[in-house]
């Protein structure tokens, strides 16, 4: 398997673990000093910003607590070059308050020596705000 194919596999595995609510598995793929950036302007999107590993795990735990059956991740494409991977996917879930979450993402990873080093997420922030934060 080429490095790029292996990097694609790691990127997919991260979100496969998230789909299965296996955060130990997901975070075992991240370097200790990894950075994960969530899109949006903090004034409008409370989850926006750069996250270290521990803070990201707390965010994921909050997400899964509010989506009891988990978020089903469907992969659409994976493009890799060098140590970079772009993963297109959709996420589908139902919040405990009954709202439907159905977002679309492209996630850019930097993966070196088998560990995720950087992640930059793009998603439909308007949908995320309306589902998670709007009154």
């Amino acid at each position, binding site marked *: 398997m080429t490095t790029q194919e292996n990097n694609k596999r790691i990127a997919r595995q991260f979100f496969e673990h998230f789909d299965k609510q296996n955060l130990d598995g997901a975070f075992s793929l991240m370097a200790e000093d990894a950075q994960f950036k969530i899109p949006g302007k903090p004034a409008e999107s409370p989850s926006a910003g750069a996250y270290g590993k521990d803070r990201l795990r707390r965010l994921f735990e909050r997400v899964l607590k509010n989506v009891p059956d988990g978020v089903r991740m469907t992969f659409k*494409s994976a493009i890799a070059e060098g140590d970079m991977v772009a993963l297109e996917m959709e996420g589908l879930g139902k919040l405990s308050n009954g709202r439907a979450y159905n977002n679309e993402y492209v996630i850019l990873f930097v993966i070196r020596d088998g560990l995720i080093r950087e992640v930059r997420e793009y998603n439909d*922030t308007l949908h995320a705000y309306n589902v998670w934060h709007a009154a």
Partner: protein
Amino acid sequence: MPLSANAQLIARLFNEVAKGNGQVFWEHVHDDAVWRTIGTGSWSGTFKGKDSIINDIFRPLGRKLVSRQTDVTRIIDGGEVIVVQAKGKNLTHGGIAYDNDYCFVITMREGKIATYEEYCDTELIANVLGDRLSTWRPAEKKA
């Protein structure tokens, strides 16, 4: 490894647009190209054909913005599929900064753009650009 011809072309097209030469960009878009902006707001959706992309997205956008700039920060070269990470620096006619973050997933066919998927901060679009249809007009002459 050197960039593929497609990745080199995409880098060149963004450079040309930055210099104000948008025509070169449109010359490298297939007539049947499909543009998709994620989300469900008025600027979101699938636009089929170069004429629709120009008339239904870029002309309304041009009426909203007084200056436009898109700086490429990273290209991921997938050969037929090129991923572009970019930062927008734009200003509306009302003097509001519209600085969106973009990730474009561009599929090439025979040296031209066939599909263009735009992932960006859709909430920022809604807050700053407002309703696309407020500046949309029926089809005009071809660009």
